[in-house]
């Protein structure tokens, strides 16, 4: 019997899978980026179904609202055009697409065959913000601090890499340029 939970799961799942396949089919990066955003939004819906409301909100804010904006920004900035087909990409399609089909079939078969895993109800494990916060700042304090250092390093690295190369004759040491 189709419960409303299953219908919602299938709807979000269909959007996510369609977005993922569309990402493969589309030749223009901006279309690929938009289909990835659709995947992320659909996944936020799946998280809601699983009860992880805080994760869902963060998924929308961080992934769809910040990381993907960065991607779209770079695509716009570099004016990336339609992807060219090369010899390498044809070889990759010949081996990659069957490989992917085989891989996903294998995963699906293994998971469905050995599904001694049971069912999950709607909102199976409510991840309220305060509970997640308690976990983050008590049990996972060390990893949390380590990731904060990681992101600090990433900020500095991004600034160094993306800043304009120094003008010849002035400024700090000149990097290797032609």
């Amino acid at each position, binding site marked *: 019997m189709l419960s409303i*939970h299953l219908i919602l799961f299938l709807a979000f799942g269909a959007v996510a899978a369609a977005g993922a396949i569309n*990402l493969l089919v589309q030749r223009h*990066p901006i279309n690929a980026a938009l289909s990835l955003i659709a995947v992320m939004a659909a996944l936020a819906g799946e998280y809601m179904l699983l009860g992880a409301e805080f994760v869902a909100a963060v998924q929308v804010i961080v992934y769809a609202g910040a990381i993907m904006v960065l991607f779209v920004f770079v695509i716009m900035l570099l004016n*990336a055009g339609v992807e060219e087909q*090369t010899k390498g990409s044809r070889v990759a399609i010949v081996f*990659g697409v069957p490989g992917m089909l085989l*891989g996903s079939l294998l995963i699906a078969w293994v998971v469905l065959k050995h599904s001694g895993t049971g069912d999950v*109800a709607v909102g199976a494990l409510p991840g309220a913000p305060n509970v997640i916060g308690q976990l983050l700042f008590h049990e996972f304090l060390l990893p949390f601090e380590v990731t904060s250092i990681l992101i600090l390093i990433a900020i500095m*690295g991004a600034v160094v890499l993306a800043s304009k190369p120094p003008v010849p004759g002035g400024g700090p040491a000149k990097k290797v340029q032609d």
Partner: protein
Amino acid sequence: MVPISYYLVLSGILFACGVCGFLIKRNIITIFMSIELMLNGVNLSFVAFAAHWHQLAGQVFVFFVMVVAAAEAAVGLAIIIAVYRTRETLNIDQVNLLKL
């Protein structure tokens, strides 16, 4: 009630699409997006397993994955901009020399 295996199959489909995109795409930005797709597939299985084992740690792990993805996106896109500045192409087949 939805069997947890459905969530895992969906997660597997997303991950496989990510791998496939990583293999067949030739634009650096799209390849990078495929990596994000793989991370998203893994996140879904984290949350599904968290619900199954009643361990909120699974949801906390998703945050760490997101932080790593954000850091990776910032640095990776900066590298892409730097590559584009020197090579004036985004096609990875043409980025095959260590030194210009």
